[in-house]
């Protein structure tokens, strides 16, 4: 039975590792300016912890195989050096890895989430609600109208609660259900939640951020390739959570202008 266990563990280890290496299921190609850093960090971690995984499992299997015979008169052996090598080994190996990962990792993290957006970044408001996203562009006047939750009325498409009757800044605000952005331009999103917590997750951008009701949370990115991809919700928000989705369209500067005009035309 011991030998069988050893074999099973070995097979599981090889198969799992193989599939990880084969990249059958893997991250989609990244198209954000800062995504490369995250991918690099991911690979670092993948390699180091992959090695740990394989070694640990195989040593376990090896020992089980080696000492599998239920021979009660064989003398037992104590692991050379007792517990000390274990403690030292763990502290040095794991400690070193932690140090490396934290130092590099926290830099990348800071560059995306701590560092403020480029001052010239294009500002876009995002309203998350059960179960859709709406995006607001300031329009020609470059000013956002103020938000009045009490005026929110989905039946007339007033998803942000604008007050065009009295608020001139609000009249030319462009509200769309698709997030179109110009390529190679820093974008700053301001995340508003209308009802409950939601999240903004674009795998290809490698960024993710919760919407928290009552807070306005900034998030910035720069898309470096013309593409269309999905924005999905990763924070349980109710029955339609699985269907909470919008599309991110990265357009050339001209196409983006065209798109804006179309939107404001309507």
């Amino acid at each position, binding site marked *: 039975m011991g030998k069988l266990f050893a074999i099973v563990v070995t097979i599981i280890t090889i198969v799992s590792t193989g599939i990880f290496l084969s990249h059958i299921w893997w991250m989609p190609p990244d198209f954000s300016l800062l995504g490369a850093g995250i991918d690099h960090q991911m690979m670092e971690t993948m390699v180091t912890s992959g090695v740990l995984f394989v070694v640990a499992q195989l040593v376990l299997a090896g020992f089980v195989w080696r000492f*599998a015979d239920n021979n009660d008169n064989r003398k037992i052996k104590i692991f050379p050096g007792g517990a000390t090598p274990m403690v030292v080994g763990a502290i040095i190996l794991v400690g070193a890895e932690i140090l490396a990962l934290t130092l590099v990792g926290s830099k990348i993290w800071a560059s995306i989430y701590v560092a403020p957006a480029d001052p010239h970044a294009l500002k876009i408001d995002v309203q998350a609600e059960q179960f859709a996203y709406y995006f607001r562009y300031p329009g020609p006047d470059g000013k956002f109208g103020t938000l009045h939750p009490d005026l929110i009325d989905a039946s007339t498409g007033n998803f942000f609660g604008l007050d065009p009757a009295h608020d001139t800044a609000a009249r030319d605000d462009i509200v769309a259900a698709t997030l179109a952005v110009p390529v190679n331009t820093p974008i700053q999103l301001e995340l508003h939640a209308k009802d409950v917590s939601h999240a903004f997750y674009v795998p290809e951008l490698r960024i993710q951020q919760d919407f928290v009701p009552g807070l306005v949370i900034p998030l910035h990115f720069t898309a470096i390739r013309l593409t269309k991809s999905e924005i999905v919700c990763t924070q349980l928000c109710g*029955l339609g959570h699985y269907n909470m989705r919008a599309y991110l369209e990265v357009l050339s500067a001209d196409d983006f202008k065209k798109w804006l005009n179309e939107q404001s035309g309507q």
Partner: protein
Amino acid sequence: MNSPDSSHAAGPQGFWRKYVFSLDHKVIGRQYLDLSLVAVTTGMILSWLMRLHLGWPALSIPGLGAIAPEATGGIITPEYYLSLMTMHGTIMVFFVLTTAPFAGLGNFILPIQIGAEDMAFPRFNMMSFWVTFVAFIVLVSAFFVPEGPPLSGWTAYAPLSAVGKDAGPGQGWGQTLWVISIGIFCIAQLLGSLNFIATTLDLRTKGMSLARMPFSTWAWFITSIIGLIAFSVLLPACVLLLLDRVAGTSFFIPAGLVISDRLQPHAGGSPLLWQHLFWFFGHPEVYIAILPGFGIVSHILPAVTRKPLLGPRVLIACMIAIAFLSYTVWGHHMFMSGMNPFSATVFSVPTLIITIPAAITTLLWIGTLYGARMRYNTAALFCLGFISVFVSGGISGFFLAQPAIDSYLHGTYFVVGHFHFVMGVASMFGIFAGVYFWFPKMFGRMMNETLGKWHFILTFIGVYCIFMPMHWLGLAGNVRRYSAFTDDYMKGSIPLHRFITVAALFTGAAQLIFFYNLFRSRFRGEIAPANPWQATSLEWTTSSPPPHDNFGGHHPVVYHGPNEYGVAGKDGDYIMQNSPEPEPVAAAS
């Protein structure tokens, strides 16, 4: 109430006092285990329904429509899927992973292992079980309320869990019952932990110094301390949430929320406050589930390897370190929550550091195997399985502990795979090992080894087939808590989901072997001797099952630690803790 007089060695007679409202820690321990057996079966069935729906969303499950109005014609609606998920999580985490290894096995074994006649407060002990029972009933009743069962997940994030009906199905009575149930459960656990601590501190028999306590007792002791602190924070959180729901307060609900076109009458609350309170409990909860496993494995390994556990003191130190660190890491659940991004780094460091003691314990177990004279009984196999699964689950923690990587993997199936391995499966293997190991002591009969080994190998393969692929799904950006993968980039993952579903059904079926073995052995198993495994700790010095006062009127005296294996003892290669012979000379080379 506490000074046990050995007069009542026979214990109370009469059905009610003996089996139902019993004060005997052994009966209460078995009651806990039976409750968690019911709970785990329920939870497993819920997970099957979820898996079936994920693989084949349009599938109509026969009979389901009859019991669940939410699932019209047996087709699982999105909200019903979320309810299944919420109930699965809640039942498994609270009523299985907390109840079985800690309250259940601990209740039965701990007092015997320290040579006590019973818990320090038998009445509290009985109360804490029955309060747990009530909590379970209240939770399950949430399945049958008009607005449908709760669907806010086992983490019940506010404001979704706090605003009430307008937020959609499951936000009416269902969610309220959920909060009440968890609140009640907290009270039960607090009583239980208090009892464990007092018992371990005050009722140890002569010679049972802290250093001589078996590893399992150590683990339960540390767990009870973690539990005491964790649940005394979750309880207030539940009170606040309940008030937000029913009394119109605004602890967690901010101003200006428009839900179902209605402006909510709340103002000023902080949703992040709930997350902080919840995860301050939630992360230690992970260790409440896994530490008993540590103890059980460390307790069983020497008995099955026939050699002392490597570095016993180090192991205990590691468990204490883990317990301490577990209170400094809750923020790693909130990297993406909108809290100050600086704190992400602050929280990630201790999160990574906690892997050091974990790694050390793993190495100690593996090192113990070296040069062993393994006895591959089922308990041993589950210990080995525990180590393998714990390694797999622990290593995926390396990814999630780093904010930079978590910003990609957060909220994906990678997380699901991670915590099911490290918290779910590992703890379950610990429980299985404990049950196979202590069953003879509990019921005076042996479990069937052949069935046990089949149960192990099938389960072991099964869990890897279920949870390893989830890591791949996560890498591909497959978001968790989705009731279906509509026409989008996640569609490609459906085949893998179907594979997981099949694996889940297969593994579930394998558990039938365990149930059969459990019930058959309880009545037909061969009669167990006092010490079937030739183990050293006190529970093996008394008869199987032990008399009502555990040691038949006398108090055992302890002369040795629990780790005296692979030595020249008078009866074989080990020395019982209570045998008066002198400290042995190690026979190991």
